[in-house]
């Protein structure tokens, strides 16, 4: 070997090459095992439970027959569908108008409007219900005409109206974000071509704008539908006697201790959700194909009338959202609503209240922190294995599918599945008893964190995947050709370059774990109370003001975490500016 540079030296590293190949296989296999244990087995157990009786004997569809024979139960299907559909039909147009204003006009204050519109993402949906009570309840601000200053307006709050309003507020930011992305990727050349052919504004809107975002629209539609269809928090507070599937599951399990019927309702809830999920996935893939094409970004030109109309609309929405949460904040500080309007922190003491008070709040922070750290690690590594370590194609595809699947699983379904799976002491399969190796997790912080990780898995996975896809696949090949083990490249290149996405996933995990109530309400134990569960329980007990106060603590924590994320990302951008210029 003659060379002016150097002689090849020994190939170093923990494993030799064949060991490395084995390690890759082992890792992707472990990912499959992990998703099987946390997703497939629990949901499988739930499905099985819905087909057995109290004694554990297989009864086929007898439980379903019983379910559909009871109008009190099966009526909820129609209720849930109606509420979800109404929410979607309001949310998507509002989200579209807002997103269009943000992306297609020259109105001022776009950043501020977008931040305000995202507020509902940081709040537990329970708070939406509570705020509505303070606005439109019997002693509500608007019902009473601002404490008697104006004539009051009375709304039939408890029931479908209250649920729909809460869900619109909850789903609006999601629709807005999806449609903003869809609108942002449009190709300026299409608009130039249409204008050059003499097309008018309306014609362009219907022939260029709408077709360009059709996949985004469909996606927004299904996402809003799924969220509204499966949400538990708001209906719990303002549902009244109007039964929907999500509250039915809760009532069956917590109220009547009828776990079997809970499983049946869960499956009934799961079916439309899974259908919507599948349609959404198909549509998403088409959307991705559209982005791949090269396009010239659209530059908006000022247009006074349009810009003012957009500004007016966005101001209205922003005002409504701010007023909504401001009312909740105000109510949480008022001594006795609506009689003694002295402001103070009475309701923030939680003394003599059920729910756990500050212990619950700090437990929630701990839980969210663990969920963020562990969840981000697991999602990122899984996405990395799927995107970059392309070994054993069938296993890889299995891991991908199981990573997308949790998006279709409502929190309550995950919670109930986890009870069934983790509480079991073991299983008897063909006469042999297998003790449950995961039983120790039951009623611990561990199961709470695990349920959160799975509940919010898909969004984190997709965010990480997108970031990884933008990285040259040849990085791995180049390192391979230099004999550098893949894990070194993972730590030296992949991880640092993906840092913004990792922080994004982390903050997403934290914020959602703080706010969620649906999965954890079945899984928390008396010695580990949680803030969101405390809100539900205090609201149940009629302590609405402390429930509202606790909600505000959650909102503020989430806003602080989100701000820390924004600042952190900015810092990273400054630091890495040198290598992200290109």
């Amino acid at each position, binding site marked *: 070997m003659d060379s002016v540079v*150097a002689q090849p030296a020994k190939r170093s590293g923990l494993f030799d090459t064949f060991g490395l190949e084995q390690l890759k296989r082992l890792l992707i296999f472990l990912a499959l095992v992990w998703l099987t244990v946390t997703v497939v087995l629990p949901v499988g157990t739930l499905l099985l439970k819905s087909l057995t009786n109290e004694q554990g004997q297989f009864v086929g569809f007898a439980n379903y027959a019983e379910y559909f024979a009871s109008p009190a139960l099966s009526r909820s299907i129609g209720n849930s569908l109606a509420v979800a559909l109404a929410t979607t039909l309001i949310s998507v147009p509002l989200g579209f108008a807002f997103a269009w204003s943000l992306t297609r006009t020259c109105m001022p204050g776009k950043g501020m409007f977008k931040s305000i519109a995202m507020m509902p993402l940081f709040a537990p949906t329970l708070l939406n219900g509570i705020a509505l009570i303070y606005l439109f309840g019997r002693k509500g601000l608007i019902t009473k005409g601002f404490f008697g200053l104006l004539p009051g307006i009375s709304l039939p709050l408890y029931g479908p109206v209250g649920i729909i309003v809460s869900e619109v507020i909850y789903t609006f930011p999601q629709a807005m974000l999806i449609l903003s992305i869809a609108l942002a990727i449009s190709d300026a050349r299409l608009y130039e071509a249409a204008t050059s052919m003499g097309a008018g504004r309306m014609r362009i809107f219907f022939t260029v704008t709408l077709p360009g975002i059709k996949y985004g629209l469909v996606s927004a539609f299904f996402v809003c539908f799924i969220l509204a269809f499966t949400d538990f928090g708001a209906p719990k507070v303002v549902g009244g006697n109007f039964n929907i599937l999500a509250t039915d599951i809760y009532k069956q399990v917590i109220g009547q201790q009828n776990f079997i019927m809970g499983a049946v309702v869960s499956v009934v809830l799961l079916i439309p959700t899974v259908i919507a999920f599948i349609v959404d996935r198909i549509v998403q893939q088409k959307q991705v194909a559209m982005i791949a094409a090269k396009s010239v970004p659209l530059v908006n030109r000022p247009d006074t009338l349009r810009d003012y109309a957009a500004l007016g609309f966005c101001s209205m929405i922003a005002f409504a959202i701010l007023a909504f949460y401001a009312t909740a904040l105000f109510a949480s500080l008022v001594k006795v609503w609506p009689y003694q309007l002295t402001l103070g922190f009475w309701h923030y003491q939680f003394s003599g209240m059920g729910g756990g008070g500050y212990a619950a709040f700090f437990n929630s922070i701990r839980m969210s922190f663990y969920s963020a750290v562990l969840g981000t690690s697991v999602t990122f590594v899984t996405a990395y294995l799927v995107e970059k370590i392309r070994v054993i194609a069938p296993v890889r595809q299995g891991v991908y599918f199981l990573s997308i699947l949790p998006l279709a699983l409502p929190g309550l379904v995950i919670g109930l599945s986890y009870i069934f799976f983790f509480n079991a002491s073991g299983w008897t399969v063909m006469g042999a008893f297998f003790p449950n190796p995961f039983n120790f997790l039951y009623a611990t912080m561990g199961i709470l964190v695990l349920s959160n990780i799975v509940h919010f898995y898909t969004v984190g996975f997709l965010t990480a995947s997108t970031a990884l896809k933008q990285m*040259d696949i040849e990085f791995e090949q180049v390192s391979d050709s230099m004999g550098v083990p893949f894990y070194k490249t993972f730590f030296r290149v992949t991880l640092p370059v993906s840092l913004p996405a990792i922080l994004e996933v982390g903050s997403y995990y934290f914020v959602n774990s703080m706010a969620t109530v649906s999965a954890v309400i079945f899984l928390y134990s008396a010695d580990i109370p949680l803030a969101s569960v405390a809100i539900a329980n205090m609201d149940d007990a009629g302590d609405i003001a402390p429930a509202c106060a606790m909600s505000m603590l959650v909102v503020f924590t989430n806003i602080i975490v989100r701000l820390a994320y924004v600042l952190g990302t900015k810092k990273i951008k400054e630091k890495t500016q*040198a290598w992200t*210029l*290109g």
Partner: protein
Amino acid sequence: METDYLALECVSKTFGTVTALDDVSFSAEKGAFLSILGPSGCGKTTALRVIAGLERQTSGHVVINGNDVSGLPVSKRNVGIVFQSYALFPNLTAAKNIAYGLQGRYSRGKVRDMVADLMELVGLEGLGHKYPSQLSGGQQQRVALARAMALSPDLLLLDEPLSALDAKVRIRLRREICSLQKRLGVTTIMVTHDQEEALTMADRILVMNQGRLVQTGSPTEIYKTPATPFVASFIGTMNFLERARKVDKGAYVISGKNFRVHEEDDASGLRPGDMATLAIRPEDVKVVGLGGPETNRFSAVLRSMEYRGAFFRLELSLQVDGLPRIKADVPGETLSALNLTIDRPVHLLMPPEHLLVYGRDNQNGRPVKGNGQEEFRLHG
């Protein structure tokens, strides 16, 4: 041949139902610069990836430096790769990119010295602290080259290494890569779709089409005696005269016009009465006034001319049914000497020594001409 440094033996690669490589065999001597040339989708990149070990062949063997590496992953093959995208790590400086494979194998000081040597080798002194995004395309290219060379690979593999650069830089880097390759004596395989790149850089060119190796040879051989019409049209421009009927040794007739070719260049295996295709490069077609030799002289009418800088590309009609317009490259002075204008009648000369013959057998990629293409051995 014992001195073969790299050999592919009957390598095939299929992806599902698609055959990317179809029974490809070739070899190269140590220090050779080979270029695999072909249109997109012809399998050239797959060939490179199979040599690198990034892709496992469906059948056949790969031998590097006397070792059968068919079953070895890329990390065991000791090859340096420069990808089309360069695949430089964006978060590492140029120096750290180059040091990437060296770290952990050598002491810190040694790595520093080696990186300095490599930077000097590719002419990047003083740019070690820059990140890839702060470097120009040409500089990034050199970093990728230095990184690939850092571990003194047995083989240097270049995948369309210059296609991302603009024309001026490309031409400069062609020369630099060639001289670097000669200095280091590293056996190099370059994949390209750019015929000019292959002709100017490589010692040997392998032309591929539809997963098969169509012709191998020196750049001159490939250009002067393309083995098939495909090679002829892919590399440079070629006039094809189809439906030529053989009447005798070296004599063909198309639509009543007689064509003579050199007997030793005549396609083997063709008997009188067989059909063939004749071909000639535009620069070999002569445009002349009246008089002179009568062989292969045809009257024609000038139909169009295109200014190409150093010469004019003319299109002439032979005014015979069944004969296409003939392209001819003519220097400006010939043009003015003949006082040529559009629609003027002229005479065309197709010298027999420049006329190529393609029989039916070599229409679809199997060379039958007797100038060495059957033997796919390369002598770098």
